């Protein structure tokens, strides 16, 4: 067991600290920076400073030096108290600095005379019992209610562009604590268990001010870590805790570590509190069942002190809402007007816990207030009197209860020599609320920097909690007309949902004659295009029948393919591109007169060009690949090909087709020649056109004779028609 602070000693410390602070020259309106994770004297210092008329600025001592510098420079404290002597002196030479351990004895000695009795929480200096207040110099005690003075200034983040000091008054803190105490019937029999830091409002309220105001007690344990997690319930039971204070990530870890329940007697626990991040429904229910205790969560911002809503304290509470307003008036700013609270809109909060404003930021303060209401930036609606939060208007990521402005991460990432640009976003995460994903566009997509290298770069420049959990490389960021990243598309690329959707459209029954043999490969091909920013490429074969001139059916079929391709064009910068392969080799194999097929293919190529489609002669590809038609044909007609031919599953079909299309006489000979040509192309063409999707008018059974590519089987010139357009001789009307 560590140090114990009873109310008498806490009051003495608070009074002594107030006295000492005044002696150090602290006066009304000053700020005292308090760098500690969870010093036991935290609440007495807060109370002592309030008595002296000053506000404390709690700061995480483990912040990155740049963030620490920003907060200290912004807050301009008159004095710095820290429990971890650091290299602050160099940077803030002008500001007096004290290590709490060095002065706490002095406070106790000073306070011993000032507060001789054990007093209930709220009478501790928070209500102004110290020397300064008695002298009438404390605006906290005597202040004008219209011009409240902050008792605490909490920074929302430590970075220049988004860090703001939220000023909360003594009455904010006390109102919040009283509302919580009344709502959940907290009294002197309660004991809180805190494993969260005291530089964040949740820890300050739940294990500091709330127990104080309710006259309860709190155990300030070591911060929760994955190493002490295994012993959490043991400690809770040993300390006879009645209210553990949790966050969703801790709940998830406890569930994982205690598959069969806590294994210790938790019967003293009345309920647990959970804050700082959205609590997923399944996690909430499972936790309550496994550990047999109700868990109550609340919703609020640092700007609303802690919770503006809270789960009703009734059995069978719902698990999809953040509860009922807690002494607050909540409006929903939606299109239908703020009276329509059942429609989704921005959540606006008014109440006794709404902050005074942001320190030194009049514009930001004006912007967040709408009259007496604060604009939360969160979206939600009411159902049966309970608030349901549906999303956020702002892009801020909340990870482990800490606000992270994604733009700041991107600014840092962009300073990496090998990164062109990036987009950081939050991903819902059952453990930490939201995890950080940074999509980076490397300067050279083929040779991106090591992911660890980019993470390390961010760590060097910012606190650890800004470090992206996941780095993804894309060759481009999808953008809208204004140059802003198209978030929905970007998320769709990352999740793979966009490629699934594109393939769904490409395989709509309007176009599809049958299912692809390998849908997974089709999806992967589309996904690769989306990731690399390259066009989605399609390849199709075009044959020649008895017509030498372009027919209406040919135009219809080509136009249909274009229409189908357009459905794949989700992202403006990623077009769908079709290449028509003019099968002059197959025509030669079928002994079609050269002048005939050349005339036809040229007409096809001309129409294709008109429609913006590339065409390429099969003979050119053969030449490029070093394929020799004479050899292929000779092989197909030789005895060496007998086995391939006699065992081929398409033998009958090909012979049947050759009877109609082979102009050299013997259909079987023609079919063998045709099969030989096809087989020799399958793999080389697959490699040559790798990354393309093949469009086939045949059924899937023919895939083995076609280029080895993911293949879509489509109707030809009209839904339901499978005949190849070049074999249609009569005129067809659309």
């Amino acid at each position, binding site marked *: 067991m560590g140090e114990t602070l009873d109310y008498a000693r806490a009051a003495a410390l608070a009074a002594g600290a107030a006295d000492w602070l005044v002696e150090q020259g602290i006066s009304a309106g000053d700020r005292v920076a308090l760098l500690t994770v969870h010093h036991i004297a935290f609440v007495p210092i807060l109370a002592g400073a309030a008595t002296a008329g000053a506000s404390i600025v709690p700061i995480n001592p483990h912040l990155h030096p740049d963030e620490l510098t920003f907060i200290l420079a912004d807050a301009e404290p008159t004095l710095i108290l820290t429990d971890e002597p650091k290299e602050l002196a160099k940077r803030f030479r002008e500001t007096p600095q004290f290590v709490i351990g060095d002065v706490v004895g002095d406070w106790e000695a000073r306070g011993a005379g000032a507060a001789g009795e054990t007093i209930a929480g709220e009478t501790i200096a928070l209500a102004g019992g110290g020397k300064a207040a008695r002298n009438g110099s404390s605006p906290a005690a005597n202040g004008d209610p219209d011009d409240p003075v902050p008792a605490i200034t909490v920074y929302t983040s430590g970075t220049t562009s988004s860090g703001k000091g939220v000023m909360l008054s003594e009455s904010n803190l006390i109102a919040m604590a009283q509302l919580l105490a009344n709502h959940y019937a907290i009294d002197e029999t309660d004991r809180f268990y805190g494993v969260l830091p005291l530089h964040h409002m949740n820890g300050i309220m739940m294990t500091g001010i709330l127990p104080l105001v309710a006259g309860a007690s709190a155990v300030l344990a070591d911060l929760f*870590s994955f190493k*002490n*997690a*295994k*012993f959490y319930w043991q400690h809770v039971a040993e300390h006879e805790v009645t209210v553990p204070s949790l966050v969703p990530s801790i709940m998830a*870890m406890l569930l*994982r*570590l205690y598959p069969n329940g806590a294994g210790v007697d938790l019967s003293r626990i009345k309920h647990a509190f959970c804050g700082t991040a959205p609590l997923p429904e399944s996690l909430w229910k499972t936790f309550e069942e496994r550990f047999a205790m109700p868990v109550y969560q609340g919703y609020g911002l640092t700007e609303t002190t802690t919770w503006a809503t809270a789960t009703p304290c009734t059995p069978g509470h719902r698990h999809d809402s953040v509860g009922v307003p807690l002494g607050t008036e909540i409006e929903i700013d939606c299109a239908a007007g703020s009276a329509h609270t059942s429609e989704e809109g921005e959540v606006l909060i008014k109440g006794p816990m709404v902050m005074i404003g942001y320190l030194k930021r009049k514009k930001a303060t004006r912007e967040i207030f709408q009259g007496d209401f604060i604009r939360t930036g969160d979206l939600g609606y009411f159902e049966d009197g309970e608030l349901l939060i549906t999303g956020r208007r702002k892009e801020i990521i909340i990870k482990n209860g800490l606000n992270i402005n994604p733009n700041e991460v991107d600014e840092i990432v962009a300073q990496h020599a090998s990164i062109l640009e990036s987009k950081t976003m939050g991903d819902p995460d059952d453990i930490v609320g939201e995890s950080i994903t940074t999509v980076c566009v490397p300067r050279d997509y083929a040779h991106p920097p090591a992911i*660890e290298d980019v993470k390390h770069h961010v760590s060097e420049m910012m606190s650890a909690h800004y470090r992206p959990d996941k780095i993804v490389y894309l060759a481009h960021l999808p953008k809208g007309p204004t140059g802003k990243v198209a978030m929905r598309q970007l998320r769709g690329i990352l999740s793979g949902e966009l490629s699934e959707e594109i393939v769904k459209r490409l395989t709509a029954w309007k176009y599809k004659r049958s299912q692809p043999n390998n849908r997974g490969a089709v999806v992967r091909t589309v996904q690769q295009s989306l990731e690399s920013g390259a066009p989605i490429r399609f390849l199709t074969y075009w044959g020649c029948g008895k017509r030498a001139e372009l027919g209406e059916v040919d135009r219809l079929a080509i136009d249909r393919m274009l229409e189908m391709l357009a459905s794949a064009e989700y992202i403006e910068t990623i077009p769908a591109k079709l290449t028509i392969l003019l099968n002059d080799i197959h025509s030669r194999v079928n002994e079609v007169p050269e002048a005939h097929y050349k005339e036809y293919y040229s007409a096809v190529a001309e129409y294709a060009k008109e429609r913006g489609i590339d065409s390429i002669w099969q003979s050119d590809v053969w030449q490029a690949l070093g394929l020799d038609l004479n050899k292929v044909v000779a092989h197909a007609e030789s005895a060496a090909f007998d086995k391939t031919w006699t065992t081929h599953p398409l033998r009958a079909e090909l012979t049947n087709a050759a009877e109609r299309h082979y102009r050299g006489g013997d259909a079987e000979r023609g079919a063998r020649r045709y099969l030989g040509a096809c087989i020799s192309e399958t793999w080389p063409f697959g490699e040559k056109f790798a990354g393309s999707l093949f469009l086939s008018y045949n059924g899937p059974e023919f895939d083995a004779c076609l280029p080895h590519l993911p293949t879509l089987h489509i109707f030809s010139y009209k839904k339901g028609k499978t005949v190849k357009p070049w074999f249609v001789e009569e005129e067809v009307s659309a």
Partner: protein
Amino acid sequence: MNRGQIEARLIAHIESVSAARVTAATHLIDEQIIDSMGFINLIAFIETEFGVSFEESELDECFESIGMIAGLVTKKRV
């Protein structure tokens, strides 16, 4: 099961969940092979797989590498 077998089992488990190559000496946390939830999962895995449980100080001191964990598990199973 001897220490070598326990090590091999742990290496196989960690490689399967982290997709990283590890040796008995790899520092699991410092080298970011596993994160905090990964650590929690590892404890849960070891407890079920080898039927042992740990003291608080052991998790703090002996969970740095697979070699150290295997040593601790071997000792506990005796």
